């Protein structure tokens, strides 16, 4: 770690140790909230537990970016604890999106989907599902729409709204689609044959220069890498620079928030944190926004115990940490003869296939057991050859090595081209999928680690399979060979939601419709924690759009002097 990685970004905006707002976390939810608040005139301090990288650090390096702890910490140092199917707690680095300024957006693949209006009222549409705590959102999709549009402009999202038959748009996306690999046409034709509707996947990647940033250079180093030209629209490249440009925002890297302080009237007064040198620090503010990913946000609220809040802050309902959702995940793959037309005529330097379909997103037939499934998205296998070699060596029941491994490498790199699909499927909320504080395992500062357990609803695997089947059908219709399922009925562990759901009733939700804690009038949460349903898409854009909405609400509540007033019901 170099000194520049721990240096604060932006001027000290505090006066006598106090800012107007503290934002904990600098990823999708934190950076978006900080941007909205700084623009609204708030002096904002952003606390980020990870280092501050810049473009120089994002070398096209297959080891550092993809295979070490540049983004995701080691399970020895900063563990999460995952309770496996047999009930045994295991140290893991799953459930970390990233620890660095910009959060998980820095190494994301930047697939950019909106939720559908129906996602916000699934409980009403599907009815009460046995075993699920499904709930409708307290806000309507129309309240979210202007923020989707604003965020898409902030990010410079590329795509083609007119060709997307599934999501609802009022106007075109700001940038045209990225250039495409010839596979895109083949996917589209095969989908047409099957009655499916593939459209160009929107990406938070610049297809043209936008707001002072250069367009994508097609380096192939995208997902799992930081973008060295800044063309990937991350919190670090697209949002924080604008927040810093207001002069009212400071980002403090390597600062781990571990307690939110409250006064005897129940209002948040500030945040205690451990700084880059290991020293205990405190910053005060009249608004506290928490956005450190759904897992770590639950941990911070549970760590913020005090005599008045023995079960953690904002946890009167006992729901903090519950209804944890990881987006459902699956993948499949096929091979195509390298020298067969049309493979031989495709320009393989083009990295983007960018085709998705959502024909099974929501089924309006009440007789079907699968009524809400999700998204299928096509892409080329990851460009890092170490991932490919590892996949060939380690995906079978016994590892492949020696001559068979070399032959497999020769086959994949000399004889065929590969195409992959990913599915993002609905995960129904369940009360027992939850985050708690581990009673034994601690992080390197001696703080209890977040322990999580997933108790999936029976339908999760079924809807995931139906999507994987669709992907497989498309690969077959394309004439693929060795068409196979490579992952099914799995969870993503990087698309996280739930744990502090919002709603109108303080008995059944943690946050109100403004993502403000029911029991703490100046405490807000803007990561994926607020979501009562997670949608069957990567939720990054929704988190970012909602955080802008919440920042507007905070500014409005501040103007109405509502932030200091005790509110809601105590019980």
């Amino acid at each position, binding site marked *: 770690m170099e000194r520049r990685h721990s240096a604060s970004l932006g001027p000290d905006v505090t006066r006598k140790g106090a800012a107007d707002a503290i934002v904990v976390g600098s990823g999708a939810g934190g950076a978006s909230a900080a941007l909205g608040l700084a623009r609204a005139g708030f002096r904002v301090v952003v606390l980020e537990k990870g280092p501050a990288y810049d473009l120089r650090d994002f070398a096209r390096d297959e080891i550092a970016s993809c295979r070490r702890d540049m983004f995701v910490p080691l399970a020895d140092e900063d563990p999460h604890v995952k309770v496996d199917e047999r009930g045994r707690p295991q140290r893991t680095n799953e459930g970390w999106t990233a620890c660095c300024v910009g959060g998980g957006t820095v190494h994301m693949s930047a697939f950019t989907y909106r939720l559908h209006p129906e996602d916000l009222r699934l409980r009403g549409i599907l009815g009460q599902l046995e075993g699920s705590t499904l709930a409708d959102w307290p806000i309507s999709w129309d309240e979210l729409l202007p923020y989707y549009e604003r965020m898409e402009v902030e990010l410079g999202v590329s795509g083609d709204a007119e060709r997307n038959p599934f999501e609802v748009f009022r106007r075109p996306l700001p940038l045209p689609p990225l250039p495409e690999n010839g596979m895109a046409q083949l996917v589209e034709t095969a989908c047409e044959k099957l009655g499916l509707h593939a459209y160009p996947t929107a990406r938070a990647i610049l297809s043209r220069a936008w707001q002072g940033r250069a367009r994508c250079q097609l380096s192939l180093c995208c997902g799992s890498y930081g973008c060295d030209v800044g063309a990937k629209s991350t919190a670090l490249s697209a949002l924080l620079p604008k927040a810093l440009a207001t002069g009212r925002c400071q980002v403090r890297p390597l600062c781990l928030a571990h307690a939110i302080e409250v006064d005897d009237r129940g209002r948040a007064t500030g945040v205690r944190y451990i700084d880059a040198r290991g020293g205990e620090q405190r910053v005060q503010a009249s608004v506290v926004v928490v956005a450190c990913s759904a897992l770590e946000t639950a941990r911070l609220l549970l760590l913020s115990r005090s005599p008045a809040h023995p079960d953690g802050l904002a946890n009167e309902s006992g729901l903090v940490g519950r209804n944890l959702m990881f987006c459902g995940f699956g993948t499949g793959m096929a091979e195509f003869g390298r020298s067969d037309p049309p493979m031989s005529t495709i320009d393989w330097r083009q990295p983007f296939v960018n085709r998705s379909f959502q024909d099974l997103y929501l089924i309006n037939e009440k007789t079907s057991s699968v009524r809400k499934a999700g998204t299928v998205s096509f892409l080329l296998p990851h460009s890092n050859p170490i991932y490919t070699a590892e996949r060939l060596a*380690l995906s079978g029941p016994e590892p492949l090595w020696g001559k068979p491994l*070399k032959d497999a490498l020769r086959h994949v790199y000399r004889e065929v081209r590969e195409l992959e699909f990913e599915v993002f499927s609905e995960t129904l909320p369940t009360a027992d999928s939850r985050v708690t504080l581990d009673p034994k395992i601690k992080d390197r500062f001696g703080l209890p680690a977040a322990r999580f357990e997933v108790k999936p609803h029976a339908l999760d695997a079924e809807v995931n399979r139906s999507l994987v089947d669709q992907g497989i059908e498309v690969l077959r219709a394309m004439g693929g060979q060795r068409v196979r399922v490579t992952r099914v009925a799995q969870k993503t562990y990087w698309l996280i939601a739930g744990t502090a759901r919002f709603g109108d009733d303080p008995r059944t939700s943690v946050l109100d419709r403004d993502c403000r804690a029911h029991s703490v009038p100046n405490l807000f949460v803007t990561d994926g924690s607020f979501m009562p349903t997670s949608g069957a898409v990567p939720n990054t854009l929704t988190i970012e759009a909602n955080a802008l909405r919440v920042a507007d609400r905070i500014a409005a509540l501040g103007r109405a002097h509502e932030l200091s007033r005790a509110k809601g019901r105590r019980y």
Partner: protein
Amino acid sequence: VKAASARLIPSDADPGATEADVVAFIDAQLAKGHIGSFKGEIRAGLRQMDVLAHRAGSASFAQAAPALQDDVLRQLQHGMRLEGRWSSRHFFLVLLTLTLEGFLCDPVYGGNRDKMGWRFIGFEPRPPHPRCPYRGRA
């Protein structure tokens, strides 16, 4: 390590771990933080490799014939207790993974000498951005 990685990615008409100097990569990684923590396990695994080779009549693993080396690696792959708390299967997977990394990594890490691994698979990364001098930090 050198002899074992040469069996995991053998040399034939195309270069293998030996030509790509995978062992230079593994040595460099073991001298650093995270991978360095595998040092004890790797030492225990290497000792076990010699023990098994010796039992089969060879002076050491490195001096054993390729067929015997493969047999020893297969025994480790299928699992046994190593001295200390490690399992030989985990050791085998660590060694295999490091060998793959050393074969296909950016040459700044010491392996993939003269881009032998990359040339074998026809991988041509786009040149590093001129602004990014920090390759090889891990």
